[in-house]
């Protein structure tokens, strides 16, 4: 039980655990681990609240129905699992501005939220453009040895590393 209360486990152990978890998502649910499609479904559901059923006529929502599915429950589970883990180890944050951000860019909350919002838009847009995210391509697709996923995962990191260098090194 003490083990469950530790703040951090070895990344190798955590990774192996995620790999083994994927055996069971395939065996029991016939689903790969993935997350980003759920945000499209949520976006469609919200749009439906404002524009009604005609949202479902959109080409994208014909391919990705805006309704609750396995993956959306999976994403909800992530929130719960991370909450349980952080409560057990006393690691629940409550922070608005992450430490590395405030050291480099200061304590202006509006700036952090603005950049985070812009980042979120690019992230959601890019994930659906590429048809997958760090989970669907980066973990599930690479382990299936899919060419589409290896290209995506490498480009996630190329884009991420370049833009981080830009904002941390040049802007500073």
């Amino acid at each position, binding site marked *: 039980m003490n083990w469950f209360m530790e703040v951090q486990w070895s*990344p190798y152990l*955590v990774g*192996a*655990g*995620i790999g083994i*978890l*994927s055996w069971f998502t*395939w*065996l*029991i*649910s016939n689903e790969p681990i993935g997350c980003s499609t*759920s945000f499209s479904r949520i*976006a469609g559901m*919200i749009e439906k609240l404002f524009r009604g059923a005609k949202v479902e006529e*959109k*080409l994208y*929502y014909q391919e990705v129905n805006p309704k*609750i599915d396995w993956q959306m429950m999976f*994403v*909800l589970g*992530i929130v*719960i*699992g*991370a909450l349980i*883990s952080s409560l057990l180890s006393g*690691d629940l944050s409550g922070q608005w*501005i*992450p430490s590395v*951000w405030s050291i480099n860019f200061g304590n202006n909350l509006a700036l952090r939220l603005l950049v*985070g*919002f812009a*980042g*979120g*838009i*690019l992230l*959601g*847009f*890019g*994930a659906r*453009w*590429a*048809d997958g*995210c760090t989970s669907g391509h980066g*973990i599930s697709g*690479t*382990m299936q*040895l*899919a*060419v*589409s996923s290896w*290209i*995506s*995962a490498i*480009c*996630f*990191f190329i*884009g*991420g590393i*370049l*833009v981080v260098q830009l904002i941390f090194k040049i802007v500073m």
Partner: protein
Amino acid sequence: MKTGKMKLFWGLLFGIIFGFLLQKGGATKYDVIINQLLLIDYTVVKIMLSAVIAGMIGLYIMQGLGWIKLRPKTGSWGKNAIGGLIFGAGFALLGYCPGTIAGAIGNGYLDALTAGLVGIIFGSGLLATAYPGLKKGVLKKGYFGNITLPQVFKVNNWVVIIPLTALIIVVFYFLERAGL
């Protein structure tokens, strides 16, 4: 209907385990993810590549036994390379990805719960609106289908799996030796 509900239950349960592991690994934290992109802390890469080794070996054994049928995603350069770079830029600005933001919310990071979450949903909705045009154009550029690496090299799956596993272990060895 009953099997449908059962499937949703399993999704929730698997998600709880995934979120628990992500948090224990530190991947639900902006600081850990940004330090990875700054190349000063390789926690995220270690988690991902360890998952690839364990997952790949298990999944291909299970497929060999006929227990599962894998579904590699179809792709194109226009879809995966350009989409991947846009995603990377967002990853750098936000410091979370679609899975780890859910974990970050559970971990109590309020920038994730507010700006980040709203941004991702908004961005996903924008793509849905832009989709018909993109589908006819850039998403088709350089189409290569649902091929896998062994199919590209025209070899047995294990001719890729075994050397790739060895290569990843060598990468781990050098990361540890460099103290990263």
